[in-house]
């Protein structure tokens, strides 16, 4: 097994009094794609959003989340730096109302990068990694909101890549897209894992089996099973996992 990018210990998440995730322990391997699957409400998205502290204001997260040996789930943590290292791509494409170019370098600009050549290079590199470069290279200064949904989502991936995080969290990144765009993004992800660790929440089991190296199955806020993807799909050790995979619930 590879190096560990992120280790979760005894993590529980509650919205007010209502527990949503209970007692999760898992280790995300570096430079791999880990898929989190499970029914709606199983707590997988909630867990994902806790990993870079995006749940701070709406939920109470307890337990430890270790990143480079530092528990980032502590009050003294600098959440901005955590999020700069652990980026996030959302279900809905969220381009800002500005040009494609400005969208990609947005994070960099805020960190004070002013050198034009650095910015230009980063834009090109990020858009290439997100497999969008060829489609937009001639209209970088046009509005990002004029792009198609699939292009917008790849732009959002490029925007996250441009900040050069270690880990990218993806919350059902293709569920709002058409099959062709979905394919393009899946192809992109396979390329990206050489450089990044990817954790992806998906509803689509085929997608999980196609792209991920590891898969975790969640049910009712609990981690049921966490294994290399082919093992989980071919040979689940838990009956509940098997039922879910074969379409039987409960």
């Amino acid at each position, binding site marked *: 097994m590879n190096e560990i990018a992120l280790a979760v210990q005894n993590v529980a998440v509650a919205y007010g009094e209502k527990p949503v995730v209970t007692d999760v322990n898992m280790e995300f391997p570096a430079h791999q794609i880990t898929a989190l699957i499970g029914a709606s409400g199983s707590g997988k998205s909630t867990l994902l959003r806790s990993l*870079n502290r*995006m749940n701070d204001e709406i939920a109470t997260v307890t337990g430890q989340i270790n990143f480079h040996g530092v528990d980032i789930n502590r009050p003294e943590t600098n959440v*901005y*730096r*955590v*999020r*700069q*290292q652990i*980026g*996030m*791509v*959302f279900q*809905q494409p*969220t381009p*800002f*109302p*500005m040009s494609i170019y*400005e969208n990609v370098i*947005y*994070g960099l600009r*805020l960190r004070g990068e002013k050198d034009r050549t650095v910015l230009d290079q980063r834009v090109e590199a990020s858009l290439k990694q997100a497999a969008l470069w060829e489609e937009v290279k001639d209209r970088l200064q046009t509005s990002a909101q004029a792009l198609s949904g699939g292009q917008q989502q790849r732009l*959002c991936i490029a*925007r*996250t890549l441009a*900040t050069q995080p270690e880990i990218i969290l993806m919350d059902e990144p293709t569920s709002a897209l058409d099959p062709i765009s979905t394919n393009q993004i899946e192809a992109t992800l396979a390329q990206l894992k050489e450089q990044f660790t990817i954790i992806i929440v998906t509803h689509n089991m085929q997608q999980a089996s196609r792209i991920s190296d590891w898969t975790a199955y969640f049910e009712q806020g609990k981690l049921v099973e966490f294994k290399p993807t082919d093992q989980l799909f071919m040979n689940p050790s838990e009956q509940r996992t098997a039922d879910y995979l074969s379409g039987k619930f409960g």
Partner: protein
Amino acid sequence: MQKAEKQDRLATGLILGLAGIAALIVISLVAYLLITGLPHVSWHFLTSSASAFTSGGGIFDQLFNSFYLVILTLAVAVPLALGAAIYLSEYAPQNGWTNALRLAIEVLSSLPSIVIGLFGYLVFVLRWGLDFSLLAGALALTIINLPLLTRACETALQQVPALQRQAGLGLGMPKWQVTLKIVLPQALPGILTGAILSAGRIFGEAAALIYTAGQSTVNVDYTNWNPFAPTSFLNPMRPAETLAVHIWKVNTEGLIPDAAAVSSGAAAVLILTILIFNLSARGLGNYLARRLRK
């Protein structure tokens, strides 16, 4: 479906009919004021000072004071209201206290201007020693406009989709940056509408100013650009009568024989002034929005 379509046609007709009536009333009101007022407006009227009891006075000082007061007031009120709105919309926990504060601010908006004016007189003019001054007037008008302005800013901020905020936060931006760089530019049109409505109220307010900015304009030197000089037109510490106060004064206790002409002329000028102000404010707002997005 037949019935639904019929209903649709009926409702559309009703809405357009009511809207048409309202638009007609509004437009004829503006037209009435312009038609009765514009014949009295001349270059002399716009550029000379008011007279105490002879006819032929102008409104130059009042016109300038109105403008200046709008700018002073907005300079105080907009940052305050916007700051509070940002706190309420982005930071504040949604609990009873926050709601109570919102309610208190809103209730303030139904106080009659004269009460705010007297409060301003007793507190700003006397207690703080600001005397009858533009600044005291601006503070009183700030109180009058805060409720609507805060509310308009908050609504505008909340109209920006939550997804945009998440995307910013996901990039590791602090909330403050997300608010300034992503939310604010998108909320600007709404904020601007609020500010323009406020500017309108400032242009039109009289009762609150009688006791604060006062109703006389003395010794104004339009060549003195030092805002600290007592006679400078830019000095915020000088008393100043605005156009609305002048209209009020002329109609209530004015001694000039041409009161009706001055009043309707001033009203027409006021309307045109507000129109110009609003259009340029929108232009400036759009320009700012473009700048902020860079």
